[in-house]
């Protein structure tokens, strides 16, 4: 076993290896026993004669759906079916998908898209939702990344405003809860959420006449082993809106124009939002889909339960493109149980022994990125297209002293979606749907907002101590109307890290460009440092878009500089994150003393820490 899991053992604790071993045995046992194949003689097809075959390896009906294949009577045949039409829903997945794909199911059960532990934790932190206990979409026992036990309490029992917000708003994008009534944000629950894509209005449009036109079903009965970008985008289009930004869509000001055949347009998203086209991410433009970067462990989990999305994510730009001083790392496929071999079975060119697979930041193999001679290539998992990856290691523009602290996307984001001023009202006198409990309960949320921005975008320190774009996360102003009509909270700013303050969150917008933000542009515009749109007046920086609660603080920033004194008034969420300090601001702006002459990033003076005394030397004095 230690040989099989040598790569995991190398980096992780014994407990971690034990869990992995247990999962492997489960999977092995089931594979040896074999799945019950019950294709022939089933009477299901008497009614569902033209239903699509799920996949080559998934024949038969009852092995997944349950029910009684011997009966021709509808009621008798359907008795005992798992779920209405979706056996992969959490209520039935143990005996449907889980009976063969135990390894995958156990991972998905502790995966952050299923637990929603990150979302719930962040809402609690920012909505004064208490600190005791860990909550997830449903109560369950799982394992922390260090291998110790973790018991989640069900969010249904989180009896405060933050629990209400999750259950009535955020839980729509939980793979354990189906969503059949939000245009284009529709998805099944369970495995089918990703592997049986729904169309925009959740209506089956395949060739089985018995179901055709009915709502609450996948678009067809064809399994999607490798989900496409639109599948991910059904959920990943709120908050950070990365699904939209990646594809080159922006739900901006929701202007509903230009119209599309006389209807609001040009493209409509969920929640009556209109989307306009912007430049897509360079990877999307090259034909890459979400799963071409994101590994199965990114999206389905690795068996451990993380408290935040960024801890579950194992990939980084540097994995493929290298960092300024470190080349991408690889490992040769040398064992028959290498994950890359299994995961690539459906690709046009499956991974073979001896291939040198590029490693994620957690030291695990990509199944589609490999070394080919002196190049790094990426295979589109769905398209089979081969992309050559540009490695930037050692290039002067990427070895600028001080820029080692920058995330790649601090410079290479074309845009960063920023929603300023999120005003959330909760009215206890109006009933609202609790999507976790499945019933209406007193209290409904509604939202208005102030302003949207794409560019420029502010930078601050993220949880890795790196300088990263940040976006409001969130600038929530809460109003609560009690059932007697009285207002108990009026545009209230919650306590965070010990004081009432708004918050920004480190963020990768997924709207990457090859062109970086220019040196002079970033260093000379204080908006990039967190001052908002601004003017400079002597040694003060004044915001021009002002928060309603103040006469001086910018709405679109978190810093002020008055008479040379830098002050931060909003927090950056996540541990170790913070706005830039006064000395960092000064250092960043000081580069402007050199940039008028040394304009280009690859100028040798930027390869070491700048010496501003040089401005007084003989050479510079004469200038």
């Amino acid at each position, binding site marked *: 076993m230690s040989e099989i899991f040598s790569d995991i053992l190398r980096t992780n604790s014994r407990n971690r290896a034990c869990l992995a071993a247990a999962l492997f045995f489960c999977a092995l046992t089931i594979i040896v026993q074999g799945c019950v194949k019950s294709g022939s003689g089933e009477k299901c097809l008497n009614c569902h004669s033209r239903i699509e075959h799920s996949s080559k390896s998934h024949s038969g009906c009852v092995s997944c759906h349950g029910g009684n294949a011997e009966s021709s009577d509808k009621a008798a045949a359907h008795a005992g079916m798992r779920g209405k039409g979706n056996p992969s829903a959490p209520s039935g997945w143990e005996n449907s998908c889980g009976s063969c794909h135990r390894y995958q199911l156990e991972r998905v059960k502790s995966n952050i898209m299923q637990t929603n532990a990150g979302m719930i934790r962040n809402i609690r932190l920012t909505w004064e939702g208490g600190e005791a206990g860990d909550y997830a979409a449903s109560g369950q026992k799982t394992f922390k990344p260090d291998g110790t036990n973790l018991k989640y309490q069900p969010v249904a029992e989180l009896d405060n405003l933050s629990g209400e917000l999750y259950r009535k708003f955020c839980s729509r994008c939980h793979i354990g809860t189906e969503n059949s009534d939000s245009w284009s944000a529709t998805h099944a629950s369970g495995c089918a959420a990703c592997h049986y894509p729904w169309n925009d209005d959740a209506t089956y449009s395949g060739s089985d006449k018995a179901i055709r036109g009915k709502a609450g079903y996948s678009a067809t009965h064809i399994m999607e082993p490798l989900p496409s970008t639109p599948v991910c985008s059904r959920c990943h289009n709120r908050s950070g809106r990365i699904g939209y930004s990646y594809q080159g869509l922006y739900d901006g000001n929701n202007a509903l*124009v230009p119209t599309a055949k006389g209807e609001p347009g040009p493209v409509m998203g969920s929640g009556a939002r209109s989307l306009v086209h912007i430049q897509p991410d360079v990877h999307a433009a090259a034909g890459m889909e979400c799963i071409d970067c994101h590994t199965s462990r990114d999206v389905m989990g690795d068996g451990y339960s993380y408290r935040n999305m960024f801890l579950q994510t194992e990939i980084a730009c540097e994995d493929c493109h290298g960092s300024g001083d470190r080349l991408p790392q690889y490992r040769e496929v040398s064992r028959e149980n290498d994950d890359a071999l299994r995961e690539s079975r459906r690709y046009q060119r499956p991974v073979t022994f001896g291939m040198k697979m590029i490693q994620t930041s957690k030291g695990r193999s990509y199944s589609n990125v490999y070394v080919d001679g002196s190049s790094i290539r990426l295979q589109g998992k769905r398209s089979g297209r081969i992309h050559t990856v540009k490695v930037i290691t050692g290039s002067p523009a990427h070895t600028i002293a001080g820029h080692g602290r920058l995330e790649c996307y601090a410079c290479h984001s074309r845009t960063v979606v920023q929603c300023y001023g999120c005003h959330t009202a909760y009215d206890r006198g109006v009933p609202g749907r609790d999507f976790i409990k499945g019933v209406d309960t007193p209290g409904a949320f509604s939202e*208005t*907002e102030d302003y949207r921005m794409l560019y420029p975008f502010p930078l601050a320190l993220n949880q890795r101590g790196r300088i990263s774009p940040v976006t409001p996360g969130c600038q929530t102003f809460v109003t609560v109307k009690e059932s007697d009509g009285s207002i108990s909270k009026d545009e209230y700013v919650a306590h965070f890290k010990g004081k009432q303050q708004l918050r920004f969150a480190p963020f990768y917008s997924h709207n990457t460009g090859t062109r970086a933000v220019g040196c002079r542009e970033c260093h000379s*515009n*204080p908006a990039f440092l967190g001052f908002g749109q601004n003017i400079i007046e*002597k040694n003060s920086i004044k915001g021009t878009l*002002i928060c309603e609660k103040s006469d001086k603080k910018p*709405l679109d920033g978190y810093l002020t500089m008055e*008479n040379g004194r830098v002050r931060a008034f909003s927090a950056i969420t996540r541990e170790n994150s913070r706005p830039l300090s006064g000395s960092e601001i000064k250092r960043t*702006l000081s580069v402007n003393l050199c940039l008028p002459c040394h304009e280009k990033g690859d100028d040798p003076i930027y390869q070491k820490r700048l010496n501003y005394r040089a401005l007084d030397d003989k050479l510079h004095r004469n200038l």
Partner: protein
Amino acid sequence: MPLMTNFIVIFSLLLALAATSFAGESCTVCHVSVRLSGVHKGVPCLGCHISESATVANPGASAYGAIGCKACHKGHERIFDHAMAKRSGEKQFVSRSYAKVDAAFWEKNCTGCHLQSCTDCHGSGHNILKPLAVDCQRCHKGYFVGWDYAGRAPREDNNRYQRGAEIEGERFLKMLPDVHFSKGMECSACHSMQSLASGEKSSQKCRGCHKPDLKIVEHGIKAHMERLECYACHAAWGAQEYGTFYLRFRDGASKEDFDLKGEKNGEYLRSAYLKSQDAPMLGLNSRGKVSPIRPMFIAYYTDILTAKSGGDENRLLGAEWRTYMPHTIQRGTIACEGCHDSPRRFLLEAESARIFLPKKDGMVLESFWQQQGQKVVNGSFMPLDRYRKMNERTMAKKRAETKKWQNLLKNVETSSKP
């Protein structure tokens, strides 16, 4: 406004005869309740209403040539010959844009702000007052200059964005007010009655009060002083509207699909593809000086009924910009690089820097920040060669930039922590 005028006419007819009577006047025999206040408190009824036999109901109405006012305020009635009453600029715009698709567009959408009487600005009939900024802002609001003076910018048209503080029923984004407003100056400080009556935009120019200090780095640059309007740099922000849409509805039902602010009964709804209020774009005004410019308007039109039956939609009727002076003046300015390194501000955006793709959404223009297909009606765009020239990296410029940053940086405290 017509409604208001009617009201004033009727109200005046009833009350004019009842004002406080002076010797020889018998008005108050009937009009017992009229009380005068304001600057005309001591004026007899017929001082404004002319005579008992041929009484003028609304002495300030342009329809009567402001007959009751001009006897004393000689020449002020000429205000009705100029922009605020004639609105010829706006009318011409409509005639070359929306009137092509709807001959009655002006009557349907543009008659709200039309100066018809002295009392539109000067209080009410029996309480004549000097106008304050708030009186001017009753019309000079929204996207138009006036609101910005008090630190207000228009919000997006979708009802999701219609929140926050409002004035006279219109919501606004809170912005940094003009420094003159913050110091308590009213519009009339620069826009005297004489200037308005004579058709001048203002009675006061920046340099009438301010003598530029040439020791300031930017002021020390000759080209700046010769070629730039003061407010090319000192306007801190400007409301910008990219892609103004008028959507025409023939039935109320399809209107419900558009959750936009606006009247439920009107034939039109208005929306904008994008609004922003950062530093305004720059062009050349009729004096050949660098000046802020704004879209006015990049005008689109959709007749919903026609569009639904497969016809034309999102028709571009004009892509016009105007030079103007944002009333958002501050002592400070944006950084040098905000103009010199910013082709976008002159509508010379490189394709590689483009963010929005309006053409992909059927809006004809490749980009709003590209001059092609657009024009400045009262000036011109910055020619490319002139932009290149102003961006030449001369030694003088490098020195000035370095000096400017030194001035800021020498006073920044490094000890302050977030």
